[in-house]
């Protein structure tokens, strides 16, 4: 299905304004600074312009579904939203969060509500950032499933693909309000070509870095190389907060008088107090150990927990790092080390 981009944006604006079924539409928007090419998720308004394709936003989709600070008991009502312009790497991260937070026996009530009430529209990447490396972790720059609708740009149009029942219902509504056309075979080919072009750019950019199917060997490396890699790490925790798959939380008790209230907020395994137990003992007293923990969590522990690695290659941790540590480079260096020591 083809639809004019301007018409689609107008449809989203109208939907958000009517507010009957959808009370908010969140889209990627360019920063106000002319020389900044990054995008951020913002509510769609009369005056801002979404930029759907490009590459991922600075803020991960996680921030909108698993809030930095949120009440979990009593659980609060969320609102119905459309979250558009989500990239493949962020969608994959949501799969991991689903596995972590919605598994059969226990369910995070707030995350579940946001997940249920948020319709997700993904979009193909037509650009990459210097830190993007989804191709190194079995990903690609477009979503294949798990979305409600997906957008691929062809000149002034979007090619819309349906990924779920509720996506289908939204498309019905789009069709009833604005003009749509059927995509031709050559237009579909055009999308394939664009996708291939981005994959080639990713492959080129990430040539110096290796990928692995033997991450479990990381555990066996002795401390010295970890010390080298973490030399400039100051333990700020930016890498974990910005990571779309990190979800470590602190539970705060905010109870009043006779009402029990529980809030959760983000925590980071990079902080010294993270695993400290009564009496002050902690299993990871040094920064090197905490740095190592982050890599083992992503490539070893999470694999055992969820049958997938905890990195989707978005590259945000590299961009956020005060110590200018390139995540890809560390994994590459240590992985070679692991192969050597095995």
């Amino acid at each position, binding site marked *: 299905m083809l639809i004019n981009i301007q018409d689609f944006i107008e449809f989203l604006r109208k939907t958000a304004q009517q507010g009957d079924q959808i009370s908010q539409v969140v889209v990627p928007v360019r920063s106000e600074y002319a020389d900044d090419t990054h995008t951020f998720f913002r509510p769609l308004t009369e005056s801002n312009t979404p930029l759907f394709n490009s590459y991922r936003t600075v803020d991960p989709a996680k921030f909108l579904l698993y809030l930095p600070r949120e009440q*979990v008991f009593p659980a609060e009502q969320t609102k119905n939203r459309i979250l558009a312009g989500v990239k493949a790497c962020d969608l994959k991260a949501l799969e991991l969060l689903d596995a972590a937070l919605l598994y059969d026996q226990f369910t995070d009530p707030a995350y579940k509500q946001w997940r*249920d009430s948020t319709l997700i529209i993904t979009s193909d990447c037509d650009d990459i950032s210097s830190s993007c490396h989804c191709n190194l972790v079995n990903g690609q720059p477009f979503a294949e499933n798990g979305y409600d609708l997906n957008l691929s740009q062809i000149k002034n149009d979007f090619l819309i693909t349906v990924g779920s029942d509720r996506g289908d219902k939204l498309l019905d509504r789009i069709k009833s309000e604005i003009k749509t056309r059927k995509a031709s075979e050559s237009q579909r080919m055009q999308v394939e070509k664009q996708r291939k072009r981005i994959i080639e750019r990713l492959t080129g950019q990430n040539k110096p870095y290796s990928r692995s199917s033997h991450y479990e060997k990381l555990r066996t490396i002795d401390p010295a190389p970890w010390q080298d890699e973490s030399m400039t790490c100051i333990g700020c925790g930016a890498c974990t907060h910005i990571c779309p798959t990190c979800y470590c939380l602190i539970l705060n008790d905010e109870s009043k008088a006779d009402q029990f209230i529980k809030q959760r907020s983000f925590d980071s395994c990079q902080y010294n107090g993270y695993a400290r137990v009564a009496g002050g003992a902690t299993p990871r007293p040094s920064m090197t150990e905490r740095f190592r923990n982050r890599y083992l969590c992503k490539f070893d522990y999470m694999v055992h927990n969820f049958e997938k690695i905890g990195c989707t290659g978005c590259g945000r941790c590299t961009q956020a790092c005060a110590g200018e540590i390139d995540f890809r480079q560390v994994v590459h260096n240590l992985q070679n080390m692991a192969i050597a020591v095995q």
Partner: protein
Amino acid sequence: MPVLLKTTSPQDIENPYRVIPAEIYDIVQESPLIRTLKLRPDEPIVFKTGQFIELSIPGVGEGPFTPSSSHFETERMDVTIMKTGFVTNTIHQAKTGDRVGLRGPFGSHYPLDTFEGKNILILGGGCGLAPLRSLFLTLVHEIDRYNSITFFAGAKSPKDCIYKQAVDEWKQYPKVTFVRAVDEVPAGQEWHEDVGVVTVLLNKLDIDPADNPAVVCGPPVMMKFGARDLLEYGFREDRLYLSMEKKMYCGFGQCRHCVMGKYYACKDGPVFTYEQIKNEEDIWE
């Protein structure tokens, strides 16, 4: 026609962060640093011995604690708590009639089915005796199912011994051997029982280690050396049960604070066999 449909897990699962209020109806000061809160929850809490609950002081914080009462008691619950820091200091200021919050139960429990007909060894020290008291009271409730119970309890000094009133009674129970040791007897304190770290009591043990379960709980050093001594004595790795203490927030596998390699201490534990965790990361610290 609403556009939005529910997509994620269809059944509405109860909120694991839900708090069950409970009233403190009595407090027993066990030792200078340890006290037992006797709680009456607003609704019965059904748990299996070895599992833990999260206990919160409204507006202050919460922490993981193991009920120290039998799991056959669901209307009331004892929790034995040592004063070690911020939250537990506040707990030690609580008064009879105060209300606290409980979440849970969470985690694994002692596999009592496999204890049937066995000679059970229980070894613990300090505040590690809390879950062991729960286990002990649960076992004696159905003592016919088991062959014997040997309970070795340790404490730093005579004044640090807990459950003082109950102990004399426990020693009288049929099929039960209860022995205590203190690390040292400071001047001015009186003691007529064993002296030494609790594992010295193993030389009084008269059961076949290869065929019987051993349960250990205590401070990390005690667990580490207790486990080593029991293995040396001949207990099997898969019948040696340890209760792991890690930093915990959620209690059900979602905050990741308690992760030990591939395991969560809260969800896969706190009760583990030695065999399960011996090769994991960060187990003793």
